[in-house]
């Protein structure tokens, strides 16, 4: 019982360290280089900001999806829940004329509530996450249409609301970095989510549930309560996405949102998070989301015909993940 040779071994690392391998990062760089060579319109600062801005909403949704996927679950409702929170903001600000912070916080809380409800379906009613969130996706979509009377709600009475996404605090301070606020929000939220996942008990249990839920339960972890908390956290991030979306469009569009779940999940998986749960990083997800928006933007800049854009997108998604798996060998 003497030979525990821990001393000669490499330094201990965080179990979330997979992110340090910068999943899919090489593919992202390769894409950016390729498009830059192909088009000078691609490599402008404006266009880079466009790409970042285009990543903000889907990136936030992908962060939300990452949290749920690490638990071994899935959230199909991210898209329509986002819309629902945007509608919530619209009702609070435009219909009830409340101040902007109230609308923003209301939307985020509503997002957390939708997550909590999904979490309750999953834990208390033992409904598989796929079904519970599919149901939520439809219920929230329908409710958005019903509440708005199928018409968009505009934020014209809340001047300044659009600055939440479109303004640039950073640009005001440092004119060389005209990063739109929407992008800033994405990065701040992503950093916060990464912190929670890696440094807090909630995050630890997120990985533990995905890795072996039964083992966590038998370790005395109150699995149901934590899972609901995790879904609520993810829902809050979805709510932030809803606010940014509404600010970008200066409106809450009730019919929007379905289909986004697939894009968000795709970004997560391209970023190296396993749908089986237990592993995954926010950094990977950001890179995955960026791959998707660089690709979309680049193909458009190159004026590729829409149907060929679809084909190319499919091919690049497969190629990016393949390249990444080769590199990891």
């Amino acid at each position: 019982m003497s030979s525990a040779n821990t001393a000669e071994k490499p330094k201990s690392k965080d179990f979330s360290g997979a992110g340090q391998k910068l999943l899919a990062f090489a593919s992202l760089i390769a894409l950016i280089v390729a498009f830059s060579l192909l088009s000078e319109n691609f490599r402008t600062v404006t266009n880079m900001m466009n790409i970042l801005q285009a990543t903000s909403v889907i990136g936030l949704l992908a962060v939300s999806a990452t949290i749920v996927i690490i638990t071994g679950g899935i959230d199909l409702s991210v898209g329509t829940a986002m819309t629902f929170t945007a509608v919530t903001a619209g009702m609070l600000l435009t219909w009830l004329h409340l101040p902007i912070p109230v609308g923003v916080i209301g939307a985020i809380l509503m997002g957390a509530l939708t997550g909590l409800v999904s979490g309750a379906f999953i834990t208390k009613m033992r409904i598989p996450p796929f079904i519970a969130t599919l149901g939520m996706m439809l219920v929230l979509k329908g409710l958005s249409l019903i509440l708005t009377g199928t018409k968009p709600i505009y934020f014209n009475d809340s001047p300044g609301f659009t600055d939440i996404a479109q303004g640039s605090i950073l640009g005001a301070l440092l004119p060389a970095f005209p990063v739109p606020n929407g992008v800033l929000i994405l990065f701040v939220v992503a950093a916060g989510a990464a912190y929670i996942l890696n440094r807090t008990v909630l995050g630890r249990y997120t990985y533990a549930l995905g890795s072996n839920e039964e083992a966590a339960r038998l370790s005395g972890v109150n699995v149901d309560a934590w899972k609901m908390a995790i879904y609520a956290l993810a829902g809050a991030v979805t709510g932030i996405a809803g606010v940014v979306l509404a600010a970008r469009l200066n409106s809450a569009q009730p019919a929007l949102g379905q289909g986004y779940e697939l894009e968000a999940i795709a970004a997560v998986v391209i970023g190296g998070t396993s749908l089986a749960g237990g592993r995954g990083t926010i950094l990977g997800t950001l890179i995955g989301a960026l791959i998707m928006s660089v690709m979309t933007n680049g193909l458009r800049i190159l004026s590729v015909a829409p149907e060929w854009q679809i084909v190319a997108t499919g091919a690049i998604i497969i190629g990016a993940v393949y390249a990444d798996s080769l590199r990891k060998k």
Partner: protein
Amino acid sequence: EKLYIPLISKGFQHQFWQAVKLGADKAAAEFGVEVTFEGPETEAQVDKQIEMLTTALSKNPAAIGFAALDSQAAIPLLQQAKDAGIPVVAFDSGVDSDIPVSTASTSNVAASALAATKMAELIGGEGKVAVIAHDQTSRTGIDRTEGFVNEIKANHPGIEIVAVEVGGGDQLKSAEIAKTLLAANPDLKGMFATNEGGAIGMVNGVQEAGGKVVIIGFDSGKAQKDAIKSGLMAGAITQNPVGIGYETVKAAVAAAKGEAVEKNIDTGFYWYDSTNIDAPEIAAVLYD
């Protein structure tokens, strides 16, 4: 160096949008400009369209054609275009703003009202009818549905609209809807679909169910033309998408060159049925 004019449309997969593209390509060849044509997958994707408009602006175009899914949401970008001196031509439906130098469109409301009038004629002014809308929230979806419904309500008290279903423009779903409508309302007299996908589905659904109802379609395409010729479909409304595309590019070229353009270009709509389907002025606005 050719002038570059991107057209940001509401879609590209439907025949209607392909016909717009055809007209745009025709004008592009005629005026020697380069035109690209793209649009989101569904008319709900306001944000995707905004993304497309953003990208189009960063390609330094000579002018832009834009069919707004939500005109208010696009205003900051349109302002940006205006500030950069890029003229915008609106097509298909208007934009609530004076930024576009020209608008090439027709009234969807008036077009559907015509469909309602024809429906009333064909079913003798009374009975139950139903609508298969292609969308519940997009401008075209709302305008075409409301145009039909309001005309019936206003001028044809004997007609009852029993259902407005949403088929999403999906041929198969619309077929199931048509069959269900017939099952739910055995005494249904007429059905109206608000776009090509809905109309194809309606034709197939009625064919499978074997019912006898007056069906009226919207837009063109081979399926509807065949159905009209065979008598299955009573008739349909078509707009002039080729004309819309052509006029949009024509106006954009003129604006880019600093020439004066007409503020509103009405491209018109037409009722067609078995009696006039082969007439030259109708055949010209139909497409497969």
